[in-house]
Each structure stands twice: as C-alpha cells, then as structure tokens.
C-alpha cells in the first residue's frame, strides 16, 4: 500500500523532540487506569459494531419464532406469550454476550496486545476490570435493543419503566460476575474461536434447560430438578418478577449472592492466571 504516510521521511530533530521528556507524569490512580481500559472497550464497540449485531441476530430470530410459531399454542395468544418470553430472551441474550469478554481477552493475548499491557507500570487488574466495565455498556446496548424489539411486538411489562430498569440492572450485575468465568477460558484456551466454542457448549444447555421458553412444570422430573438448580432459571425468575411488578425478593437475593460468589471465586483465579501466564 502506498500512502503519503508511507513515503514520509523521519527526521532526527522531530524524533528527538517528540521522544524527549522533561518531566515524568505522576502515576495515575488504579481507578483512572481502569477507566482508561473501559474507554478502550467502548472504542472497540464503536469500531467493531458488527460484533454486537452478530449476537443480536439470534435473540431476534428466537423472539420472532417462539412468539409467532409457538406463542399461541404455549400461552393461548402471542401477546400473552411475549409477556412471559421477553425477560427470558433478554437474559439469554446478555448471558451469551458475556462470552465476548473471554473472546476479546483471548484475541488481545493472541495478537500480543496483552503483552504490551503487562509490560506497563500499571495496576495489574486494570486491563481486565476495565474491559469488564466497558462490556457492561455492551450489555446495556444489547438489553435496550432486545427490549425495544419486545415493545414493538407487544411486550407491556406491568412493572413499568422502573421495573424494567431494575430488571436490567440485576442482569448487568450478574453478567459482570459471570464474565469472570469467560476471562478464565480466555486466558486458558489457545484461540478466540476455541473460547467461543467451549463457552457456547456450556451456555446452550444452561439457557435451554431453563424457564426461558416454557414453564418447567410439564418437563420430566429429572429435567425439572436440573432446571431448578440452573442459575439461569433463578436469574430469569428474578428479572421476570421485577419487570412484571412482582419482585421476588428470595430470587433477587439468590442472584446477588451468586454474583458475589462468582466474582469472589473466579475473579482471583483470573488474576492469578493473568499474572503467571507466559
């Protein structure tokens, strides 16, 4: 490729002036460093929006398919079914988007970007915590788009605006905590596509063997037991309750405790792997 920048000459004087530094800036705070990495994650959403749309294709298809194909049969009418389905689809969408955290991290490692970060005098967890914060924005965008689609199709939550926002917030907390599992996969597996493949193998049964699409009471007993211990089920029930204006405090507490446990267990493992990775 030939561009003007390619042809340009590098002169000794400008190079010297540009590199010379009379005063070393003060080291920024851990929070400032974390936000800088969060800013980077936002820039990536801006430059690579396709990644977001890729993940939104399947919820759109699922919502349309289940609402119009099975909705009438499952709930009597499509409009009754979408009230049930949409919070579940929202959870499925966000839980699947969390995989991108591991995917992005692994891409950074494969391309050598993480080596650069690790060679910097910065607060060690900043790149990962910052990326997770930035990803929260990604989850928010995905949530807004899924809910907007639901509203167009007739989703009318009784919990109103406040109920929906609270439901999304609870979901974001859980998604942030769940991401730590994918950061571990991102650090352990060899390629970004392997991260994607392994993560989906875990997430598909978790999202389908849950109460996202149907009421589990008609399922075989063994499957029901799995659905009951499936964290996705608890999350869906909690989000559904908030959006329907009937918050289930037991389920909400369950989700918050699960979030703390996920972060408390997988956060330190991630950081350990991150420090010791060659």
């Amino acid at each position, binding site marked *: *490729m030939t*561009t*003007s*920048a*390619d042809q*340009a*000459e*590098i*002169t*000794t*004087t*400008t*190079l*010297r*002036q*540009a*590199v*010379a*530094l*009379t*005063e*070393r*800036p*003060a*080291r*920024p705070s851990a929070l*400032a*460093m974390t936000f*800088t990495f969060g*800013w*980077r994650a936002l*820039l*990536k959403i801006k*430059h*690579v929006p396709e990644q977001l749309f890729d993940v939104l294709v399947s919820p759109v298809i699922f919502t349309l398919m289940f609402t119009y194909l099975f909705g009438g049969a499952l709930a009597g009418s499509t409009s009754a079914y979408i009230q049930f389905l949409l919070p579940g689809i929202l959870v499925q969408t966000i839980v699947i988007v969390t995989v991108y955290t591991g995917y992005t991290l692994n891409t*950074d490692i494969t*391309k*050598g*970007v993480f*080596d*650069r970060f*690790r*060679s*910097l*005098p*910065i607060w060690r967890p*900043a790149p990962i915590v910052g990326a997770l914060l930035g990803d929260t924005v990604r989850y928010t965008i995905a949530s807004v788009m899924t809910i907007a689609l639901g509203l167009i199709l007739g989703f009318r939550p009784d919990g109103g605006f406040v109920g929906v926002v609270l439901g999304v917030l609870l979901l974001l907390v859980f998604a942030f905590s769940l991401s730590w599992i994918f950061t571990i996969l991102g650090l352990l597996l060899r390629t970004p596509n392997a991260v994607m493949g392994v993560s989906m193998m875990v997430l598909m049964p978790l999202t389908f063997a849950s109460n996202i699409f149907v009421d589990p009471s008609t399922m075989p007993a063994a499957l029901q037991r799995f659905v009951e211990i499936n964290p996705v089920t608890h999350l869906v029930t909690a989000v559904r309750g908030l959006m329907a204006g009937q918050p289930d405090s037991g389920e909400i507490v369950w989700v918050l405790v699960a979030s703390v446990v996920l972060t408390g267990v997988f956060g330190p493992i991630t950081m350990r792997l991150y420090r*010791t990775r*060659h």
Partner: protein
Amino acid sequence: MSDPPAHRLPDAVPPRDGLAVDAHGLVKHFTTRKQVTKAVDGVDLQIPTGSVFGLLGPNGAGKTTVVRMLATLLRPDAGTARVLGHDVVNDADAVRSAVGLTGQYASVDEDLTGTENLLMLARLYGFRGASARHRVEGLLDAFSLSDAGARQVKTYSGGMRRRIDLAASLVLAPRVLFLDEPTTGLDPRSRNQVWDIVRVLVADGATVLLTTQYLEEADQLADRIAVIDHGKVIAEGTSTELKQSVGQGAVSMRLADASQRPAAASVVEKVIGSEPALATDPYALSARVPEDGADAVARLLPALGEAGIAVPEFTLGQPSLDEVFLTITGKPLPAEDDAEARPVDAQEVS
C-alpha cells in the same frame, strides 16, 4: 546528527556499574504436552548503558524468551536479572517504568486508530488531557503517522505498523528499549527507517537490546552481539571479534584471463597454504585465509604478478556472520526468505 542531544528524563542516572541490563544464569523451561523444553538454559548478559546489544540466533533459539523475562512478562525459573539496577522479579514495576518493549508483531490494538492507541498508553502512564494529546501528536508527527492517526491500525502498511509500535514503546521516553525482531517481515526501506530510529535513540542515551535473525541487522546496529542457540549463548563479542574468532577471512579474486586460473590456483595454494575454491564464474577463485595467514596474504599479489597472472580484482574480506554462525554451531542460519513464513516463534511461546 549535529544537533545537541535532547534532554532526557531528569532521573536518568545510570546504575553505578554502568550496566543497563545485568543478567546471570537465566533459565526458563516450558512444558508442552508433558514435554519439557529448555527455552533458555543459563544465559548471562551484561549490556552497558547507552549501547546497542544484539541477540542473534535462529528461530526458536530462545531470544524472545530472554527478552520476555527481562521485560517482566515471564518469571525466570532460575537466575537473576536487573534492568537499570532493578530486579525483574522483586522490583518489576520499577523495571516496567524504565523499559519500552516492541514485540515481534505490532502489539498495538488493530481495531483502534493510531491516535487512540497512543492516547490510551499516554493516559495509562499518567499524561492527562491536553498534555496527553500533545505527547501523542508529537510522536505521530515524528514517526510520519500524523495523516494516518485517525485510521484504524489494521489499515496500516507493514512499515507503518512497526512505526506505530515503536512510537507506542516510546510514550514514556524509556531509558532501555527491548526490540524483539523489529524488522522481521519489513521491506528494505522500512527496515532502514527502523534502523535510523534506533540510531537516534541510542545517540540520545537510550540502551537497546535487539533480537534478530538477520546478520546484517546485528552487524549494522549492535555494538556487541551474543549468538544464541538452543537457549545458550554460544559466542559473544563485537562483530569484528566474532569474525576474527573464526579465522582471518577469505581472499577472492577475478582474473583477466580464465585460462590462467589453474596456474593462479597453484600460486595461491603455495603462498597461503589453503586450497582455493573455484567458483562457477571461470575467471574467479577464492580461498580461506588460515589463522596465521595474514603475512602470506600480503605476499600473494606480488607472487601472482611474478607468475605473469593479471589480477584486475582482488579482495580480502572478513568472514561474514553467516560463516561465524556456521563455524560455531555447525549449521547455517536460516535463509532470510523463510522469516516471513514462520509461525510466531511457536517453540518459544507456549
């Protein structure tokens, strides 16, 4: 290079022993599928402040692993290393503040623009607002990347990418710069640009550790060279010292009359005592000079004249680093053409 050296960091005090890098007995093993590879097997390095040190070796020799240990990216399994007096394990943050690293492949974010990449680094180092922008604009300008600053790095040419990566490692004006195969895969023009940049930085007091598999690069840039193979330093010295260690070089000549070549060959063999090699060119012949053969070479040209052989071209050359490598290791360096096709040092990074 006549302008005065720019003012570097106020705390740029060299360590008392004058060594920017001081490593002793560095060892690193990797375990891949239960097989232990000794990537680095007892490496000592002493690099004086303000010099360029070349780590020369074939792919998989352990060069990258050495650099990664010195840059605090890898913990040595054994041995110690200090960079500007700071221990790479116990005082890693101090090392990170003093060192700039440029990897084999541009380790800037391809999805971001050049400006965004540098701005992110400037902010992480503590530059704020306008001072961060000012620093970034200055670097982009110096590296002829101002026009490309707003473009995503993935649209850059190979030379531009290497320049943005170099600029990224200079955001904090590091006193020690690690360049891991900085010109692999570059066209000759971009390679020369990178060399020029390195020379300017060193003239201003930076210390550079450079890994390369290009002989010419080590020869051109490095004050001292360590030849590394199978994780061990097998020879070390200036380029001249290394060449002398394998003999005095070779004489080669081109005759005016091809029919005189057998006669010339016998004169050469009689005078310097080694059998000449006959090139495919019927006018040319060359011979290695034995270690004590310097005086004999001086007598060679008059002797050829007495025998009535006209020699319009006569050169006495030092051995190339290729020959050095061949003599020490018993195998030639890999051809430069292979360099681009190889994987990202797969043997070294497990």
